[in-house]
């Protein structure tokens, strides 16, 4: 009887591991697969190579006038010369620190609230929802010794962010209230909510903005007419809260009746039931829908260009009409697209992260 000696492990064949093994398995496993791989490579090659050489290799980066764009590639000089306009609109240059500080504070709060390891979330949330809006208003608009900068001078990315953030933060609570109202047992409350939601959802945002800018002043007599940005904001908030309400309603409907009855039977009041039992669970289901709505709101803010407010897209559009810089629409629109994409993509990734995080622990 000889002792059992296991065979020594041999290295796997080259076809199973490494780059070649992976490529053989995944890219060239069959003739159609190989054909699709080659075709894709060809298409990517023929699109990407010219694009990259235009955007990077042959591009002009430094300079101050269009005369500096000589190489035939992208003229990023156009963007760098106009960069401040794209970011701040016609905000006075010596006050750029004000939007900058507002933005840095915003990032600070976002990091505080969105990274789980940082403590004192409650204080952070309260500060972010009470102190920060006032501070941001004073910083951006003025007052308390700061020079007042009227909103018609705001513009660019700064205006985009102001519109999107206020729209988001105000639309969510209104949306929740509307959704609860739509499911209320009181017929009057329910009807009011249904009419409100269906009205705002049935009208295009562009029409609402027109109405806000042209029709609202007709209702305010004399000097009480509200600021143009304020009017646009009210329109955007109404529009978005109607959409938000429908997302929230979807989340509420996904919960079983038993959850409502369980809370009722324990004697919880209506609001306790909603905020302690129903909404925390519905929120998990609603995250993709909410973020989807937020992303579309973020992009829709560009529509305010039709009432004469210039967000980042509006600023770029205006710069393109400047006779000194005719002929660089590709650079301008790519820049806008890239800026929007960064914000929307981050929102989307954060929502996926949040979904995964909330999923652990309460699987049913």
């Amino acid at each position, binding site marked *: 009887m000889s002792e059992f000696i296991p065979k020594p492990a041999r290295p796997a064949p080259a076809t199973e591991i490494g780059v070649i093994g992976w490529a053989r398995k995944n890219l060239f496993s069959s003739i159609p697969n190989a054909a699709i791989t080659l075709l894709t490579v060809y298409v990517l090659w023929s699109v990407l190579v010219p694009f990259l050489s235009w955007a990077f290799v042959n591009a002009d980066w430094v300079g101050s006038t269009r005369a500096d764009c000589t190489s035939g590639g992208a003229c990023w000089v156009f963007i760098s010369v106009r960069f401040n306009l794209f970011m701040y609109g016609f905000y006075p240059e010596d006050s750029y620190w004000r939007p900058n500080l507002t933005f840095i504070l915003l990032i600070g709060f976002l990091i505080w609230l969105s990274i789980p390891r940082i403590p004192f979330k409650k204080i952070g949330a309260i500060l972010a929802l009470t102190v920060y809006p006032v501070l941001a208003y004073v910083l951006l608009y003025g007052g308390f010794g700061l020079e007042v900068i009227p909103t018609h001078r705001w513009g660019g990315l700064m205006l985009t962010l102001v519109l999107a953030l206020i729209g988001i933060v105000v639309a969510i609570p209104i949306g929740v209230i509307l959704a609860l109202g739509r499911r209320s047992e009181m017929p009057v409350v329910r009807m009011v909510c249904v009419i409100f939601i269906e009205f705002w959802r049935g009208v295009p945002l562009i029409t609402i903005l027109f109405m806000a800018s042209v029709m609202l002043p007709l209702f305010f007599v004399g000097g009480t007419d509200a600021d143009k940005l304020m009017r646009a904001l009210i329109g955007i908030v109404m529009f978005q809260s109607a959409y938000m309400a429908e997302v929230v309603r979807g989340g509420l409907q996904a919960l079983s009746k*038993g959850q409502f009855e369980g809370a009722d039977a324990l*004697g919880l009041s209506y609001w306790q039931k909603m905020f302690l039992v129903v909404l925390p669970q519905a929120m998990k289901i609603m995250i993709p829908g909410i973020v989807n709505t937020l992303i579309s709101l973020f992009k829709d803010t560009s529509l305010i260009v039709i009432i004469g407010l210039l967000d980042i897209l509006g600023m770029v559009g205006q710069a393109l009409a400047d006779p000194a810089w005719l002929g660089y629409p590709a650079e301008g629109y790519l820049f806008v697209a890239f800026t929007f994409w960064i914000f929307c993509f981050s929102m989307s990734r954060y929502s996926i992260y949040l979904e995964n995080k909330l999923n652990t622990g309460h699987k049913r």
Partner: protein
Amino acid sequence: MTQETGNIITLKNVNKWYGEFHVLKDINLDVKMGEKIVICGPSGSGKSTMIRCINHLEEHQEGDIIVDGVILNNDLKNIGKIRKEVGMVFQHFNLFPHLTVLQNCTLAPIWVKKMPQKEAEKIAMKFLERVKIPDQANKFPGQLSGGQQQRVAIARSLCMNPRVMLFDEPTSALDPEMIKEVLDVMVELAGEGMTMLCVTHEMGFAKKVADRVIFMDAGQIIEENEPESFFNNPQSERTKLFLSQVLGH
């Protein structure tokens, strides 16, 4: 009034309709303090609806329901008062999946009774020990078996210190080997003098703990009696037929 009659629950000529459908027809029922009542009957007979009316999960249209001296009507204050006194255990447990077992148990005491968190947790642990799952306190309901979840649901109700417990088919959704652990807890509870109304098909449980068995069909109480006479000497033909089907196998 409660003291005089000794009744904690009174139903007087209660009628209920779902739209056109007449679910409960002239229900009269008196439940004494400490009484254990088992309600049985074919499905659709209105037995669940009847006990769900007692804590106003369902609304009745005619007649009076009086719980511990409080008349149940559409007054939210009265509904709140009654729900504090009446615990309920559901067929599908209805635990809150986003909260831990302990948080499930402390939620109502903290928010409805305004109890300090520490005290609520102490009471919750006491009841979790009584249903024999204190070691699961920090798990989520989804991590427990059906029988364990139902025991948590019983503990959650007991944390509100109710005077009456309603059970709506508490074992119907459980695997056979888990039924016993839940019934054991209920038997123990009955032994401590809790007033219980229990809709169930567990005839063994009925024989063991019930003071009275009620048989319902087509929205009416057909027969009520002590378990011994009920099972051995049913009066109506309908009851006999039902019992032969339930006990026959």
